[in-house]
Each structure stands twice: as C-alpha cells, then as structure tokens.
C-alpha cells in the first residue's frame, strides 16, 4: 500500500472522530506553541542583552584586582601608579586612554528628596572612555580631581528624582552622605542597560570619592576602564596591560593578581547565560509537548481497541504486519503534524503578543521566531507522534487475525 493511500485512509479515520482528534491535537498544539514562544522569547532576550552590551563600546577593557580563575596569594591592588604606567605610550602603544574609577553606593538628597544611586569617582578621561555627553554644564576637570573639589555630575534619573527636571540644575548644591556638593552638570541619558540603569549615577572627582565618600586607601583604584585605539587591537592591549601589571606587581608566571576583562568576555558570558535561559525555557515547554505525545498514545490505544475487528478484517484480506503498522503510525504522525503546524502559528502569535506587551511596558524587546525553531518544532512534534504511535501501532500489527475477528 503506498503512502498517499495511507495518508488518505488516516485522514478518513481522523475525521471520523472529529472531537476526539481535535482534543488530541490540542495537546500537541499547546506543546509546540509553548516551545516556539519560549525559544522566540529566549532568542529575543539574547539579542537585546547582547545588543546593549555591544552598545557600551567594543574597544573597552576593564582591569581590576584579583584573579577569578584561581587563588593567588599577596594580591596587590590596582594603583594610580599602575594607571600611569598603562598610560605610557612606549609601554602600551595601543592604549588610547585609561580611566581609573572607584565606585560604590551612597545616599544623595536635595530639599527633602533623597535617592541612593551609584557613585563613580572618576577622572576627566571617563568622559571620553564612556562617551558621555552633557545636557548642560561641564565635565569634571583635572583641577577638580587634584583639588578634591566637592562637585558632582548627575545622571538624568538622579536629576529626575531630586529635582523633577533635567535642566537648570547646574549650580545647585546637593548633599551626598550629608556633605554638600555643587552640581556642575547633567548627563545625557544613555538609555536602559541590562546591568541596571546607566542613568542612575552620580559622577564625582576620583580623589573626592576616595577620601570623602567611599573611604578607599590612598592611590587605590577599583576598576580601570581602558580604551584601545580600535576594536582590532583589544587582544594586543590585553597583552600589554598584562605585561605592565605582571612586571609592576612582580607576580609569578601564571599567577596574575589582576583580571583584564574585555567586551568579548562579557558578551560570551552573557551569551552563555541567555543560552542557558533559552534551553531552560525550551525544556519546560518541551515537557508539555511530551504530555501532548502521551495524549496521542492514549487515544491511539483506544483507537486500536475500538478497531480490533477492522484490523482483523484487514489482516484476513491480506494486510501484513507492516501494512497495519504503517496505517497506525501514519495516523498518529498525522495528528501530531497537524498539531505542530497549528502550534507554530499559535506560538508565533504568542511571541508577537509578548513583544507588543514588552514594548508597551517600556522595554524594547523583539521575540525572534527563527526558522530553526520552526523546523525543530515540526520535526520534533512529528517524531513525538511517531514515537508515541509505535506502541499502539505494534499492538495493532501483532493482533492475531482469528482473535481480532472474533472480538466484539
């Protein structure tokens, strides 16, 4: 018996029991729709997160104390002297700029309003390295840094919270940890980042932050932001920084007491995390597909029992085991294939709706229904039908004609 005929017979017998077929298909529809939607949401989240990380700048490196891979004794902190060495054109020709930073959280208040943004102690290079622009005022100068000036630049979110506006704030005096700071400018919004808001910050001179706000030891730096002259030279810069710091810290070979982190490292970590997220979501959705498959098996078993006599008759007129097996497998795969196709449409609709809801609530985020996910869902759902059809079909195929014919 050829496949076209088998499919026609399967369609006939499926349509003979429309409600039952519809309910069976529903299980697969839900499973496939869930898989498609979850994979799409996962892929969309990945795109958004990786996009916003790339937005920070691909030629940026971060240098901080400590080794994440192994324990190293006598860790030495990154100091201003290290920073000066990295700025040396002869030792590190591929470094464009180095911005030393101390960072922490502090309370800021103005006439009864208060907020706890992140405080960055920075030098003038920070403006260049992070590519900040200002709504008004001017950036922190070397004079501010050298003179431990009590001046501050406010991020737009901080300005919103303390003043309820983003303009005409320069010259006002706010209090940070109770100490008065004069506002010298407002930062342009940088938009939502995935690592907390980049706009909920206050920038103060490095020295002022170290002494008055964050209580760091003299000359110590939490992080150095290093800008390479271009994206291609990032690996060379990594090597240059490592050379300088190894010499200066006299660290043993293979026991670096510092870490150089590049955008690429962060991207790959974030990529790994979002991949795990996608697999996790997809896995949960796959469970519902499995449940749908069990539904198919259940209904096929009922169908085999109901049609015992029909199977006996088919065998009496010459159907071989293979013929019967193909008949029932075609039927179960057909059920799950139909469910898969409807499920793909539903899944696409769901992810479209998720995207709309996300952008309505202010997070621009586009779920991504990939062709791979569609193919995967189609193949997987048909495979589920085949797999869960095997047992009922082989039961049908192995019925003895005499007993099947006698069955009432």
């Amino acid at each position, binding site marked *: *018996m*050829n496949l076209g*005929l088998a499919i026609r017979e399967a369609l*006939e*017998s499926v349509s*003979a029991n429309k409600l039952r077929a519809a309910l069976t298909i529903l299980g697969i529809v839900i499973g496939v729709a869930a898989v498609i939607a979850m994979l799409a949401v996962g892929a969309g989240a990945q795109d958004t997160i990786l996009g916003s990380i790339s937005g920070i700048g691909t030629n940026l490196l971060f240098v901080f104390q400590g080794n994440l891979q192994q324990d190293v004794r006598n860790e030495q902190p990154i100091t201003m002297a290290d920073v000066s060495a990295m700025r040396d054109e002869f030792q590190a020709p591929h470094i464009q700029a180095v911005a030393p930073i101390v960072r922490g959280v502090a309370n800021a208040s103005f006439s009864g309003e208060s907020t706890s943004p992140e405080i960055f102690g920075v030098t003038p290079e920070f403006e260049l390295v992070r590519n900040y622009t200002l709504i008004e005022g001017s950036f922190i100068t070397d004079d501010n840094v050298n003179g431990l000036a009590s001046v501050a630049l406010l991020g737009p979110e901080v300005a919103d919270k303390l003043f309820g506006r983003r303009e005409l704030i320069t010259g006002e005096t706010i209090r940070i940890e109770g100490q008065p700071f004069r506002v010298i400018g407002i930062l342009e919004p940088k938009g939502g980042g995935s690592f907390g808001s980049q706009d909920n910050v206050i920038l103060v001179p490095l020295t002022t932050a170290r002494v008055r706000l964050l209580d760091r030891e003299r000359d110590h730096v939490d992080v150095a932001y290093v800008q390479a002259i271009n994206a291609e030279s990032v690996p060379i810069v990594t090597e240059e920084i490592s050379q300088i710091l190894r010499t200066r810290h006299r660290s043993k070979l293979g026991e670096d007491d510092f870490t150089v982190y590049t955008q690429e490292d962060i991207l790959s970590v974030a990529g790994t995390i979002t991949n795990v997220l996608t697999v996790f979501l997809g896995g949960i959705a796959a469970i519902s597909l499995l449940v749908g498959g069990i539904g198919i098996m259940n209904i096929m078993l009922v169908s085999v029992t109901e049609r015992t*006599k*029909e199977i*006996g*008759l*088919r*065998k*009496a*007129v*010459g*159907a*071989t*085991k*293979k*013929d019967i097996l193909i008949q029932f497998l075609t039927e179960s795969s057909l059920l799950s294939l139909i469910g898969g196709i409807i499920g793909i449409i539903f899944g696409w609709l769901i992810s479209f709706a998720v995207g709309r809801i996300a952008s309505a609530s202010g997070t621009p985020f586009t779920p991504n229904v990939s062709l791979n996910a569609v193919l995967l869902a189609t193949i997987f759902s048909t495979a589920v039908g085949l797999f869960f059809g095997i047992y009922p079909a082989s039961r049908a195929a192995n019925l*003895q*004609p*005499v007993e099947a*014919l006698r069955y009432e």
Partner: protein
Amino acid sequence: MTKKKDVILTSGIEKVYRLGEVEVNALCGVSVNIKQGEVVSIMGPSGSGKSTLMNIIGCLDRPSAGEYFLDGEMVSNMSDDQLAVIRNKKVGFVFQNFNLLSRSSALLNVELPLRYAGVTEGRRERAIKALESVGLGDRVNHKPTELSGGQQQRVAMARAVVNNPAIIMADEPTGNLDSKSGEEIMKLLLNMNKEYGTTLIIVTHDQKISDRTQRVIRLYDGLVVAQ
C-alpha cells in the same frame, strides 16, 4: 469424472488451545481433501471444531500439528506475513456479519484486497467489475450503512472474489439475512462456482444449505465423522 487436483489437502491436523492451565483439543487429527471446483459444506454442532478448521483452511490460523497444503503449497508452517500474502492471493472470505469497513464506500471496501496486493493499475475498474457481477453496479459509492443486509453481503462477496482467489470461505453467509436475501446470496455463491470454477467452502448449521452442496464434511468433537 475427470481427475482434478486437490486444492485443499490436510493430513492429521491437530489444534490445541491453552485456556489457562487446561489444554483443549479443538481438532484431533483431521484429514480432508477438497478438489478444485468442488462445493463443500462443513457441518457440526457448536464446539465440534468447525470454526477452528475453517480458520486453519482459511490460513487465519496455524495447526498445532499436521500438514496443510493449499493449492499445492505447504502453508502449515508459514510465518504470519507469509500467511497474509496467501490469504490475499488465494482465499476470499465471506463472514456471517459482513465485516465491511463502515467508513468507506462499497468501492473502497472491494478495492481493499487489491490495495494490500499492491495493485495500482486498473484497481478501480476491477473493483467496479466485481461489484457489477454481484448486481451492485449502481451502488458503488454507497457506504455500508446505506445498504441493506443482503446488499452488504453482496459487497463482501465482491470483495472476496476481486483477487480471483482459489477458494472462497463462507462462514454462515446467510446467518444474518432473511430467507429471501439468503437465497439470493446462495445463488450468487453457487453461480460463482459454476462460472469461474472457484472452490466453495461453506460453514453452516443449516441443513437446507448443506443439501445444495456436493459434499458435506461432518465434524464431531474435533474429528471428521463423515466426508
């Protein structure tokens, strides 16, 4: 009478059923031979083993012991799938309760053996011809539920002969029909035997039917008592 070959030849067929711990001997050494073109009825009280014998002769079941040759082929030790092919090619069945596929039209029911035989060319035409030969040329696309009992049995007969089998096995073919339709069916069956020389084996309780066959095989307690 010219010497015709045996289309069915069994020697010492036994069949043992196992019902839990108890073994039941349904057939205890049955040897029959039926010649090509013969019309034979198998009779016997219930429990005599006539259904078991019919199942074995129709290749639906295998004997526990003994040998069975159908149309010159030894079929008593064939596998399930080999038996399926034999049934398809050599045996046509007519059952008491018709056993038609209720969802399919008369035509598709008659086509079924051809489908399993892998016939693609002229399948439809052969099925229509078979339906015409039983007088149902105008009911080709009717479903079994739209046909009377006699008509349904005629569809079953068209299905039985569509593959030109060597033997037709009819199991109480008139048992579910009124006397008028039963008579029509009997006439058709005997007619097929006359026209195509198909061997006809009828299992029945009915003395009136067995009177019309050339020979009666009587079974009692798993043994042939007359043939």
